[in-house]
């Protein structure tokens, strides 16, 4: 262990003199997170209010309930600004002119269709430059229509049971009793990070995979500059040499993440969550990143080759794991596939931490630790050929 520490300390001393390491581990992630926050974070960010328009051509109880209870309820809570359009055309025009993020078009006959059990729909017209605001509008509409479907089933069941009240009255009564908290339910779910934190964490974990590269590819560098032979001839166990390289990556990773967390909190106002939970996630994430990059390095013949392959793997895993955009927006298949990426678990762990206690991060920590155990074991087996000149 002493030799592993000595090797790691030497590596760290050398890395500390490499300015590109600071750029990769600190400047780039902070810079990109800041840019993403500036470009995208204002959409639905802290205090950001979506401006919606509603055009009610129905004027029935279903449409009125949606407008008065759901939309005006959200507006009263400060989540949205609501403007009324006299027609669907006016609502569309408001969106086209940027006066509204999205518009709800409630068609004539909506209430009748719902009560009669016919297909009915609320149309959402969104601004192409405001995908998040449009997504939120769509979610509001879908949540409401989902409730309507439930009401429809309940009314049918009531009628079927022999109650004499007219179905239309039952439906109107049920629709009127729809909860106005539907917006809150959809937007304050426990797995939701605010944009600043989302982008800061996404960039931090994405660049973490680059930051840890230098440690695990250090063995290939040692071979290139000839010092590997000297290490192998020294009274040092080969396992200590490998452990020293992995330790270098872990230390660089933890330092990089720590600085990024502090800096993004102070400079960008990101809220990472309880320090203990964040610490567990960071440690597990660093181990997972180290393992993944170590496998790639062990498969490469040279440090340059390893660097190229590692970049590809880091980018693919980062994109897959939601470092750039929330995976939930990418469809079910990709969402399932994303579970192989440590990034996904890291971000999910942070979201869970935001919505629960420290214990909420344990599933994510366990997933990343398992990933790290498998990849590190594979890397150690593969690295044997590197320490056998």
């Amino acid at each position, binding site marked *: 262990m002493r*030799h592993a520490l*000595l090797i790691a300390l*030497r590596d760290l*001393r*050398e890395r500390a*003199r*490499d300015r590109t390491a600071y750029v990769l581990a600190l400047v780039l992630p902070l810079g990109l997170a800041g840019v993403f926050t500036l470009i995208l974070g204002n959409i639905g960010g802290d205090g950001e209010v979506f401006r919606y328009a509603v055009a009610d051509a129905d004027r029935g109880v279903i449409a009125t309930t949606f407008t008065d209870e759901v939309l005006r309820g959200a507006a009263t809570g400060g989540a949205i600004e609501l403007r009324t359009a006299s027609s669907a055309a006016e609502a569309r025009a408001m969106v086209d002119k940027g006066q509204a993020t999205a518009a709800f078009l409630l068609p004539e006959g909506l209430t009748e269709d719902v009560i009669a059990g016919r297909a009915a729909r609320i149309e959402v017209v969104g601004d192409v430059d405001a995908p998040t605001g449009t997504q939120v509008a769509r979610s509001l509409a879908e949540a409401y229509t989902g409730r309507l479907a439930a009401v429809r089933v309940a009314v049918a069941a009531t009628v079927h049971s022999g109650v004499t009240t007219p179905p239309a009255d039952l439906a109107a009564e049920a629709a009127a009793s729809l909860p106005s908290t539907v917006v809150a339910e959809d937007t304050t779910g426990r797995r939701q990070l605010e944009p600043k934190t989302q982008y800061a964490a996404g960039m931090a974990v994405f660049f973490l995979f680059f930051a840890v590269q230098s440690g695990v590819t250090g063995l290939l560098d040692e071979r290139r*500059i*000839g*010092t590997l*032979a*000297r*290490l*192998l*001839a*020294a*009274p*040092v*166990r*080969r396992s200590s040499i490998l452990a020293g390289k992995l330790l270098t990556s872990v230390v660089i990773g933890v330092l990089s993440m720590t600085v990024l967390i502090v800096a993004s909190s102070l400079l960008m106002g990101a809220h990472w969550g309880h320090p203990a939970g964040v610490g567990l996630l960071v440690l597990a994430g660093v181990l997972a990143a180290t393992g993944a990059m170590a496998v790639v390095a062990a498969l490469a013949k040279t440090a340059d080759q390893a660097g190229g392959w590692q970049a590809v793997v880091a980018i693919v895993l980062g994109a897959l794991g939601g470092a750039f955009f929330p995976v939930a927006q990418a469809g079910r298949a990709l969402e399932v596939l994303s579970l192989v990426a440590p990034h996904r678990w890291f971000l999910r762990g942070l979201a869970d931490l935001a919505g629960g206690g420290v214990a909420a991060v344990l599933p994510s920590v366990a997933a990343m630790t398992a990933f790290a155990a498998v990849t590190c074991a594979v890397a150690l087996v593969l690295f044997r050929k590197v320490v*056998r*000149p």
Partner: protein
Amino acid sequence: MSVLSCSGLSRRFGDVQAVDDVSFSIAEGETYGLLGPNGAGKTTTISMITGVLEPDAGEVVVAGQPMSTSAIAAKRLVGYVPQELALYPDLTGRENLRFFASLYGAARARVDHVLDVVGLADRAGDLAREYSGGMKRRLNVAIGLLHEPRLLVLDEPTAGVDPQSRNQIMDNVRALAAEGMAILYTTHYMEEAERLCDRVGVIDSGRLIAEGTRRELVEQLGERDRISLLLDGDLAHAATMLGGIRDVKSVAVHGHGLELVVDDARECLPVVLSAVTSNGVVVRSVEVNEPNLETVFLHLTGKALRE
């Protein structure tokens, strides 16, 4: 006493038998030169001696300790100076030395000592990447000396260095041998081997094909030292007189000169000149020809050493 003992060392890489049944030993204070063309098996042999590589067969013993890739105790007894510069360019000379000193458990005071020995004390705080080629070579050697090894393995330590650094390295090697260190030395420079090595082993195609002192190797080939004299005077009388000297094996007359075959030209030359001049013969020129290792090497391997 033997510090290094190699017996029956063999190592194969795929279809290539890199080293084949190589055996030799090096005594305390002895400098042993391992000569061979590129690809002859020198570096593979050295890798097995230093515990970098495991032999397929045979064994290496360093001061009584068997060597292997996991032999920590044996590795502490060996100082290794690889052929390639093995330095960390972004560390200073002193930091490079401190790192390896800590790996070997050497005292920190040794760092300053070896910096003095190799003449880098005044540049110890500079990054290794800023050193000249010769300085890097000297630092490369210094790392191998840090822990006062019983056996020092130097693989081409002077390749590509300036004459000043080469002389300094060679002076260091002589001094270390004088202190009792056993030294295994490979080089492409024949004059270095002749000046430094007490014994030489010639390796070719993985096999040790000859071993001994320079004189022993030369004699194995039937070659002798020759002294050519251009004289004014009675050549026949001079030839008869010189033929009577014990170390002179034969004398032949060629025009105005004589050619003598002798055991050791350097020892014999003063006696020969004294004998000639004391008999009134004037010496116009003297030429000494000593068959060198280059000749031996070419004869044994059919190749020049630098091929």
